[in-house]
């Protein structure tokens, strides 16, 4: 199913008739959790919603089921194609192979995949949307170190996957850039294929509590739905937390909003929207686009004004990364 089969592709993306506005039908295949997970999938959904209201595209959504196999993912994409959807967005790296295959089987349809840029999903009709999570995490890592009085911070990862390790790597690098000797506690809630670490706030809370009680005063989570538990723990410990994916100081429950000093924003919505918008404009995107600090694809949030005091320093780091003066590692 993978590996490109010679030079048949001719960068078909820009060949479509440019100019005229097209109405297209967009099918969205979410990762496990689907719309409403207050996290990654929701961010993609926001892009879709925006496209729907601004561009008037017709949409259809479907979400993955826990523990499904490759064929089920392929089938989902294929069913969307069968149902007449011309542009299919697959959210999450689990779709890599199935996007690759579906794209080959349906050369007239267009695909986008979030979080994968591998050869598996590559194709002339595939837009690979990836993010420099490590860069965004670097900034919030620096923020954590700057805000920490104890010189002790934490990181809670949902599930031990390379993607989440990328968050960890950036965070650690950012913190160390500020304070070489800072103590960083790291915990992953579960190991794959047990993905409950993204859905178990009780575990998130316990892990974060442990960190706060052993001296941390800022904890950053990349744990999807378990992050709610991290905020609860921060609230109870009267400490600080950092959100992820979207600006969680806006989306989190009211009573814990004030513990969220910043969030590492991963603009999946922008990636999704770009793909759709470009298509309606007649320009089909293909190939890998990395949404990084420079392009504004990842960023940090300032809602609540908790980090206004260090904003200048953070922006300085941001500039250094954009300028290439700092290269942020992708693995811890």
């Amino acid at each position, binding site marked *: 199913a993978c590996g490109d089969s010679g030079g048949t592709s001719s960068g078909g993306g820009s060949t479509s008739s440019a100019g005229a506005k097209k109405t297209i039908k967009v099918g969205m295949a979410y990762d496990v959790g689907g719309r409403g997970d207050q996290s990654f999938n929701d961010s993609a959904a926001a892009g879709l919603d925006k496209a729907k209201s601004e561009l008037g595209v017709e949409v259809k959504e479907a979400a993955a089921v826990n523990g499904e*196999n490759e064929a089920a993912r392929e*089938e989902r994409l294929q069913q969307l194609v069968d149902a007449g959807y011309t542009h299919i967005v697959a959210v999450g790296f689990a779709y890599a192979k199935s996007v690759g295959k579906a794209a080959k089987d349906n050369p007239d349809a267009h695909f986008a995949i979030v*979080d994968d840029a*591998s*050869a598996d999903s590559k194709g002339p009709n595939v837009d690979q949307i990836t993010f420099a999570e490590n860069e965004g995490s670097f900034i919030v890592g620096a923020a954590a170190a700057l805000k920490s009085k104890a010189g002790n911070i934490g990181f809670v990862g949902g599930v031990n996957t390379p993607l989440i390790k990328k968050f960890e790597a950036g965070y650690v690098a950012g913190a160390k850039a500020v304070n070489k000797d800072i103590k960083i506690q790291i915990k992953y809630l579960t190991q*794959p294929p047990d993905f409950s670490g993204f859905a178990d706030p009780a575990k998130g809370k316990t892990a974060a509590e442990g960190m706060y009680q052993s001296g941390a005063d800022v904890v950053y989570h990349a744990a999807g739905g378990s992050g709610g538990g991290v905020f609860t723990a921060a609230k109870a410990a009267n400490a600080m937390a950092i959100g992820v994916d979207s600006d969680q100081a806006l989306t989190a429950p009211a009573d814990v909003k004030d513990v969220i000093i910043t969030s590492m924003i991963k603009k999946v919505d922008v990636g999704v929207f770009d793909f759709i918008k470009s298509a309606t404009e007649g320009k089909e995107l293909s190939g890998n686009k990395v949404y990084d600090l420079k392009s504004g694809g990842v960023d940090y949030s300032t809602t609540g004004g908790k980090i206004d005091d260090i904003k200048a320093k953070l922006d300085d780091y941001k500039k250094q990364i954009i300028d290439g003066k700092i290269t942020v590692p992708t693995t811890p």
Partner: protein
Amino acid sequence: MRTFQPRRILLSVAAPVLALLVAFVITSLILWAVGDPVAEVWKTLLGAPRPRQVVNIVNSASVLYLSAIAVAVGFRMNLFNIGVDGQYRVAAFAGALFAGQAWLPGPLNVLLTLVVAMVAGGLWASIAAWLKVRRGVSEVISTIMLNAIATGLVQWLLLKVSSQEKGSNAIGTKLIPESSRLDGFALIPNASNRVYTLVLLAILVGVAYWFVLGKTRFGFDLRATGRSESAAVASGVKVPRMVMTAMIASGALAGLVGMPLLFGQDYQYGTTFQAGLGFAGIGIALLGRNNAIGIAFASLLWAYLDQQSNGLQIRAGVAPELVNIIQGVILFAVVIAYELIRRADLRLEQNRVARELAAQSPSTPATQGASA
């Protein structure tokens, strides 16, 4: 064999049909009560699958079949191997690791990988077997614990050996060489995809299961142990050894569960490898009444429902997990129907025995009480 009994056959066909009807009614009621589109849902679920989907059904049924057979081996002797889930993941990892090394050419690599996977699955199951035989730990608990332990252990090892492709966020073992990948059969006309080559493996395992359990001394001993442990002991079956053997056999078969996926689809073991097949296997084994043919039908039904549920969200706007409710209800309905029929059957048989005895020897002094 047994004298032909149309009523008996009718009854045993009636049970599953009745159960499916009951499941249909109950599910409809739930949908209606909750306010979901009943007709739309059934149109999606019961619509004729496309050729491509038929292939998917067959493929996933073959995997489920292997899992259910692995479970059934234990069930036939009253052993509850809840650990098929962990066993097949450990085995799939070991197999993928081995196959990825490409030490052997094409098909030989495949064959040996199957052996490696069986050994790995068997070894993992042997822990639970040993704990049961030597330490008296209930296999229900130990296999539940071992499932969780397998998760951690495999992930730890996977991180040690994984190769991460550039630009990918998934990790996995080394891809198996092209020469060892199995293309499958174009069995279904007009399908864009192919039926796993290792469907053959499932069939082979089914036949072996039927043969070994039904036709051999070993199988007799195993079933005897399941039917009455005390009688088996008195007949010379060494139950502890039997437990070891059956559990390890169950684990070895569990080891095969991941193989069709490995060679026909994923070509590596990684984060996206299908999980949870062991639990589905338990349901299917029970639905198929631990019988090789019954399990085949059950896994096709299960796979059919799974496959058809994929479109639920897209076509009816209903969560695909609805299908779990249907599967569970079918399971209940089938066992209750069988139970009712079993009782009726027992009654019939006793009546028949009494009647025939009465006819046989009307003059012998009564040792049976008065005949009806």
